[in-house]
């Protein structure tokens, strides 16, 4: 059990990271990067890069309100999250954990 926890903390799949980010935003609604960071268990610098990447792909949108930054899912992001949920078991079976 200890060994498993250790290995899981060192490697994560890209698809799993995207899933965790989108899922956190879907559960929380428009969310601050800090909350996404905890929800997706990512260090801030990596989260920042991932959010920029997801924004470029049109999966999340940045909202600025009173100098505060939030991220929300776009319809395309919600669609991709749903698809990731559907293929989750399949991807797990072929060695992709998330």
């Amino acid at each position, binding site marked *: 059990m200890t060994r498993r926890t250790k*290995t899981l903390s060192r*490697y*994560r799949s*890209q*698809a799993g990271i995207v899933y965790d980010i989108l899922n956190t935003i879907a559960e929380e609604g428009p969310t601050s990067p800090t909350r996404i*960071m905890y929800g997706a268990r990512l260090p801030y610098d990596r989260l920042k890069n991932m959010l920029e990447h997801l924004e470029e*792909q049109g*999966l999340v949108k940045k909202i600025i309100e009173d100098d505060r930054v939030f991220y929300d899912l776009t319809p395309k992001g919600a669609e991709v999250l749903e698809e990731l949920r559907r*293929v989750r078991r399949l991807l797990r079976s072929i*060695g992709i954990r998330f």
Partner: protein
Amino acid sequence: MDGHIGYYAVFTMLALLEIISAAISLIIAVKAMGIARKIKDKGLFRLGIGYAVMCVALVLGFAAALIALLYPVNPVLQLQEEPRHMEWHHLGGWRHSPWPGDRFGVSWNLVLLASVFFPISYAVILLGLSGEYVRFEQGSGEKLPGLIVAPGLMVGMASDLVSAGLLIGIIILARKGGGSVGPYIVFLASHILRLAGESVGTPLLFLAGEVLRPIALLIVLARVMLG
């Protein structure tokens, strides 16, 4: 095995398993590439391509089994008719082709071609997995005069060796990431059985390896369906 019910039973089962598993690997490829395209995930995309290549290999395997079914041969008679067969035996180096369908015909060549596609697919899957997983810190007998083998057998043996090596890499990588390794272990067992079959020229071992390989993909299907 010509005329024996066992011959038809084995190749019917093999053909069915190959085509079912080809369909499964195609579904995996389409799903993985589809989602990878949307999230711009190169690792997952490569993994999908790997399964697409595997689908081609399985279709070739299906075609080989189908040809063996449609054009049954008597492998024992065929061996005796093989020119220089006994001569090779006297030299002590002849290794039989382990494919009982048509030991030197089209179906055997298709099996060999599929054998080449499998390590390619594993290599692409390995490449995909290595790109997909990111390491990061959590926020929180008698001496022979020479080895004489059945035509193409070296291709099959080399492919199985390479496949086994690549699969070990895949298993290590997927295990590190915490992903499921069950199907890859079955693939590995299949290549080891094939290799054993090819080494001693035993059709039974070779066919067991052939049958086991599609079963790996059936395991994926069962896991997806049963959860």
